[in-house]
């Protein structure tokens, strides 16, 4: 069997020269947009359109990014189907514009945001994060977004807010995986619900994400807006979000409801706590031949371990 050895620098990593030259012009354009509040860019934003952002060096891992083609053709997004080829195959059924996100619950200023407005709430950054799937494979992805904390501060959570609930779109028209079928009983409960503790949601690593690889988020990767929580297994990072609600009690997530002994609320990447059916000690990085050792908190232990001091991570899996 032929095993592909990726070159040190992938073609996909190299910034297109024209784009590079355009950077300045683009920044000027942004400034113009910012100075002209009445100008709307909403209509022009489609999956795959360029989305400019400055790379945040302190949130960029050294590992070479996974090729865009792999990121967009191999992932889990159960709303399209359970197989990893389903999202890219059926991505066209999702309509990411127009789109609104309801932000409510225990907040002083609940609001409904248009996604294009939400995208401009804070400066977009490019961050290269590791992504570890609970199934045992991993990628390195250059995301575009801004810290979720920026949005949270904007809506002013009250003292009652202790958890944040993310709800993904429920629409069997747009998400074939939500349609009733012979085996619906074996699938998940919709809409997809995920959650974070408020301090996790406020952590500077937690990214409200609108793009990847300098492009508007492809439909299959959670368009038009998702979160990325890089120290947790991939399924914790809710996609195609329509509602962000601040609640006082820890919620039951979709995967917890589906298999409570396999998927806990925290689901931090942890090589010492196995999935009941398989080991989490190693992972296969997409594009690599040998398995890698999985890192505690997916390599973000320095930044996030303090969130969990005094907790038994074996129990709070």
């Amino acid at each position, binding site marked *: *069997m*032929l*095993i*592909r050895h990726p070159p040190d620098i992938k073609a996909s990593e190299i910034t297109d020269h024209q784009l590079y030259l355009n950077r300045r012009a683009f920044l000027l354009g942004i400034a113009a947009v910012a100075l002209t509040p009445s100008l709307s860019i909403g209509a022009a934003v489609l999956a795959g359109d360029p989305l400019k952002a400055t790379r945040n060096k302190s949130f960029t891992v050294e590992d070479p990014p996974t090729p865009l*083609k*792999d990121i967009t*053709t*191999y992932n889990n997004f*159960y709303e399209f*189907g*359970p*197989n*990893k*080829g389903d999202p890219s195959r059926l991505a066209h059924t999702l309509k990411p514009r127009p789109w609104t996100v309801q932000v409510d619950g225990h907040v002083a200023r609940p609001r409904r945001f248009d996604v294009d407005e939400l995208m401009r709430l804070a400066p977009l950054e490019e961050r290269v994060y590791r992504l570890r799937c609970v*199934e045992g*494979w991993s990628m390195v992805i250059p995301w575009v977004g801004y810290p979720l904390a920026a949005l949270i501060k904007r809506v002013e959570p009250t003292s009652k807010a202790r958890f944040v609930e993310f709800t993904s779109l429920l629409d069997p028209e747009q998400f074939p*995986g939500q349609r009733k079928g*012979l*085996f619906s009983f*074996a*699938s*998940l409960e919709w809409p997809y619900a995920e959650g974070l503790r408020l301090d996790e949601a406020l952590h500077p690593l937690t990214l409200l994400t609108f793009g990847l690889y300098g492009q508007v988020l492809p439909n299959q990767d959670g368009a038009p807006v998702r979160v990325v929580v890089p120290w947790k297994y991939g399924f914790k990072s809710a996609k195609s979000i329509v509602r962000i609600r601040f609640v006082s009690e820890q919620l039951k997530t979709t995967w917890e409801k*589906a*298999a409570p002994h396999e998927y806990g609320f925290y689901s931090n990447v942890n090589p010492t706590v*196995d999935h009941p*059916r*398989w*080991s989490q*000690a*190693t992972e*296969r990085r*997409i*594009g690599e*031949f*040998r*398995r890698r050792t999985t890192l505690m908190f997916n390599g973000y232990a320095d930044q996030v371990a303090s969130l969990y001091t005094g907790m038994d991570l074996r129990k709070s899996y």
Partner: protein
Amino acid sequence: MGRRTRLLLKAVVWGVALLPLLLLLYRAATDGLGPNPISYATNLLGDTTLRLLLASLTATPLRLLFGLSWPVSVRRLLGLFAFFYACLHFTVWVAIDHFFDWTQMIADVVKRPYITVGMAAITLLVPLAATSTAGMIKRLGAKRWRRLHRLVYVIGVLAVMHYLWLAKKGVTDPYYYAGALALLLGVRLWDWARRLTTRRRQGMPTVNRVGTIQRSITWEAGGYRGSKLTRRHRASCD
């Protein structure tokens, strides 16, 4: 069935059974295995093993239900191909997926039920493959050989469990395999129950302790099963 027909049938089985391997090799050569080639290869080889195993289990039901005798003539070939793909599936796991990390693999065999049953299934296939020749049937004696090869039912159940237990939620393929296996074993069960009641009605002993004698009695009593055709085929395949 003539010699030539049988030969042709075997050629078809060879062709069909080798197709998944050729597809795998072609995709490997043309960079077509997708983003996770190792997982792709493992799944394709595992799927093919299960399909061939189930195919080899269809011979008897086809004979019982429709009086078809020709499937029996390719049953061994299907079984050996199932073993061949099981070996490839296993080799990919050992040599590519885990790259001879024996400690990790042994720990998995002990700790992970789906790997335990998969391991048991392939282990049990070994004696069946080893005794698949005509010479071995003669050496073991038809009766003992038949009894040994009933292990394939256990292997079928283990293989389906292997898939059911590893599959994540929402993946429905393992249910189809489980359904197919239940059907194939169900026909045998139904036939066995039917024979049992026929025997009872005729006052025959119901426990088959002295197989051959019992069988000849049953034959003579003519209560074994339906048509002459079926009986003849039963005799030829035994």
